[in-house]
């Protein structure tokens, strides 16, 4: 079983799975996906992109020069999509289990209250 992804990594892959993006667009997309809760720093973004590229989960889609500066566009690879899908399955499974337990606790609470009321 692969290791769970860190939240920034998960969010970067999620941002890129919608289509190729350049660095700044990835930052904006991550902020949007997380509802403004996660604001990645540029250093963190590039450290994550380096690692993901090295692991073959992300690749450089294209390079262009904008305003005299190099701009790279990144995309998720097949392996990256599979890793993200596996992580989503893992999180969904965990969420289901947590929800089931919460329901059990709520129904137990209701029955306890009912018993206490009967006394």
């Amino acid at each position: 079983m692969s290791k769970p992804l860190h939240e920034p990594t998960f969010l970067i892959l999620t941002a890129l799975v919608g289509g190729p993006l350049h660095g700044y667009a990835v930052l904006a997309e991550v902020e949007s996906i997380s509802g403004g809760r996660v604001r990645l720093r540029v250093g963190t973004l590039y450290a994550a992109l380096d690692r993901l590229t090295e692991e073959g989960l992300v690749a450089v889609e294209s390079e262009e020069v904008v305003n005299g500066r190099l701009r790279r566009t990144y995309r998720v690879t097949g392996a990256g999509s599979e890793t993200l899908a596996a992580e989503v399955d893992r999180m969904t499974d965990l969420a289901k289990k947590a929800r089931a337990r919460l329901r059990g606790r709520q129904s137990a609470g209701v029955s306890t209250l009912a018993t206490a009321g009967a006394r």
Partner: protein
Amino acid sequence: MSPERRYRLLLLSYPRSYRGQRAEEMLDVLLATEERRGPWSWMSEAVSLVGHGLALRLSRPIAGPAFSPSVRLAGVSLLCLLAVLGAQQLAAAGLRGLGLDGYPDDWRVNVLWVDPRWPVHALWVTTGLALLLGWHRPAVASAWAAAALHTWHLVVTAVTTVDLPWPGDVGRYWVAPGGIAPASWALLSVSGAVMLGGPAVAARARAGLAGRRWWTVGATGLVGVALAAVAGPAAYALLGNDQPQLVEEVRGPVLPLVLATTVLASGLLRATHGRAALLVLGVLAAVPLAARWSETMGMLGAGMVVFAAGFAVALRGRRRFPSTPGPL
């Protein structure tokens, strides 16, 4: 300062090769982010950039100078012997501070004169221990820290002794014993660090002898330290004040170094490149030995070592850059 210039300065924390690939792209994103998140966002970006840049620098393999295997093996051997010397110096200072060294004088902690080079000795011990444990990166860092500190002591002592202008008072606690003999030890400190090279080089050099052999050298050195600690007071009890020089020799580093060197030499004689490493060690050891004999001989020895090192470097340079073919 303009945002671009500020970010360019912060990006200097990244390795040059990384900056060559990424700096312009990152700068573009940094400037766009500052526009979106506000002018104060650069402060948290600064922490992130410097942190990641330094982490990247530290995680890169450090390439040391390219030496022959025998010189590298001699470097590890030298640092092991310096670790034994450091352990002896620290043990002697501790025993003297506790009044357990057999002297009848009132030498105790806060009364005795502590050699200000004790941090160098501690760093030598750290280097030796790290090498024994196979922790090559801390070993390299510690060896260079010892070399830098030792050189600093040497400079401060020289400047203070000849009363040269110096920016600020360095304080008497930094002043180590002057002269060629202490300087020759600093030469060994620097030589050891240079010859050790980077962690990968150090790992290959350490593999020149079996791991068990290095541990034996260290253990023998420590036995020597313990023997010197006991033999010093015994010699003083037997000889009293008649032979103070002999008593000092007995309690000094001679015994631990002789024992450790004997075990090391027996291993080197059987190892590949070991004989050449022993020769390099012998040349280096000749400097402090000659300096003990006379200052002039010490200076001559140090000059010869520097000359030999320069000659070797020049030979390597000639081999690396073959002469261009002459005109046809």
